[in-house]
């Protein structure tokens, strides 16, 4: 799986927070819920579900094309290698200065409790390499979070517009 992006649909989000749990487990040393349950306090999720008044939304890194965090990092520990690709923090170069944390326009960078490096959604690149979709995507019960390329996503929307138009106008 490659060349994808995480899209969110607020009208499908139930605020069940399954994505948070799946994210935390996928980034822990326990890849299994059963073991992870005993060390819940040490797990950190990188997607944050916010329940607003009329809708809920999972918030995570947008993997910006011109990411402010990439530009501000003093040691160039944060990298974006390709268009529509993930923005990834290289922990071994992260000095924990938190400049990226305070520049993120979405507030989705946090601090690893143990190592005090900065952490954020990494598009589950480890899982992608194994042919799996990101943990939040596969865990979401309503498919409010999808992993899809921008092109495909746009096509889906445009096709729906066409369908609705022709349903009203009738055949040519």
């Amino acid at each position: 799986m490659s060349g994808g992006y995480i899209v969110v649909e607020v009208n499908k989000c139930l605020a069940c927070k399954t994505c948070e749990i799946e994210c935390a487990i996928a980034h822990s040393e326990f890849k299994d819920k059963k073991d992870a349950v005993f060390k819940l306090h040490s797990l950190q999720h990188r997607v944050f579900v916010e329940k607003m008044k009329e809708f809920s939304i999972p918030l995570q890194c947008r993997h910006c094309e011109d990411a402010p965090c990439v530009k501000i990092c003093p040691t160039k520990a944060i990298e974006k290698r390709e268009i529509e690709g993930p923005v990834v923090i290289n922990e071994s170069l992260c000095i924990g200065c938190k400049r990226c944390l305070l520049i993120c326009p979405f507030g989705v960078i946090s601090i690893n409790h143990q190592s005090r490096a900065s952490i954020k959604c990494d598009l589950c690149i480890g899982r992608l390499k194994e042919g799996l979709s990101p943990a939040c995507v596969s865990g979401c019960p309503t498919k409010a979070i999808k992993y899809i390329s921008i092109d495909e996503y746009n096509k889906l929307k445009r096709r729906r517009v066409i369908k609705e138009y022709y349903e009203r106008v009738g055949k040519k």
Partner: protein
Amino acid sequence: MNRILIVGGGVAGLNAAVNAKRKDPSSKIIIISKEPYNAYRRPAIPSLISGEITDWNEANIFPLKLLNNLGIEYFSGVEAKSIDVKNNTVVVAKVDTNENGKIEYDNLILSMGGIPSMPKISGLDKKGICTFTTYDSACEILKYSKDSKSAVVVGAGFIGLEIAEALLKRGLKVYFNVRSRILRRLLEPDMSDYLIKRFTEKGLIMLVGESISDIGGNSRVSNIKYKNDIIETDMVIFGMGVNPSVDIVKNSGIELGETGAIKVNNKMQTNIPNIFAVGDCAESLDLTTGEFVYYPVGSIAALGGEIAGINAAGGNIETKGFVRAQADKIFGEEIISIGHSSVSAKEVNLNVKVVDISEESKKFDIGRKYPALIKVVLTEDDTIVGAQVITKKYGSVYSYGLFNAMLNKEKFSNFIDKWRISLNNLENLTL
């Protein structure tokens, strides 16, 4: 071949090394570091004290393998003893054996860091008196915390507060002493007040208004004197900031600035053309005022290191200066401070006024859900030179726009009319 010697293996020295190599791959680069460990992330020290990590390896940065692959040599446990500016040599000694040696250089980068500031009171030689700028000193804190019922933390920077939080988690009674207020140079007074209230609610016992005046006890600390009270305690941790580590610079011919730190220009060069200085041992250039100030902050050390590294390797880049930008999360409160505060502005003779825009943030969806305390610091002509945010979550949605406004030297009236953040109108994100 350009031989670059870097004294001090903290983030300033490490970033200098990596950037020097990138600039001139044929250069020979040596880093010597007094501490007997490979490079570690200093902000992880509170994790050691809380028990979340047990070894410096869990916070290793710029690992030896990476440095060696780049062709950079890193010698831990080696200390610089003196600098011979005329002959381009540094006398070094192994810390454990005191074996001496000399290293010749073509370019020298000084990044020795800082030494914890200590007050002028008696009793500092007792057991249980701690500092926390190094891994070893953090291990001392951990050791003493295991047989202590209470601790007094003196000085309120971010790391001191994190350590107080860590000790509280360990079950100690924790007193927090500040002469005036919390995070005085980073936050406006009412922001400090807010935090004092919150931290007290979380169990920290605040001793605010005066420094502790006396340390009592025999060989081990057993009490401190605060105002007229004697408070029993088993350990005292001093986090009153750092002073530049410049002992080896004295009498070398390298000049110190008015702040007491090593004087540099906008290329991180000292008065000696082939000697550079960066990080907590040196002064740095403030972008807003063009003044040289003393900013012992990790990110500024790394940014300075980049410049020094490039220039030591034959580059010629000048910096316009740095913007202080710090953040942390303590007791569930996100605290962000960028640019100048009213206190730091005074130190560089900058006339400023402070505007509170906490109410304005309520026009955004996320600002209504998580109230935020937001201050903007302005010069007399309305230019934004600083900002501070305290909130439970997503504080950076505000600091992002404010930081950019600062870099663009925007006027406040222009900024506030067009102020937008990301976490607003999100109901539109749907298929």
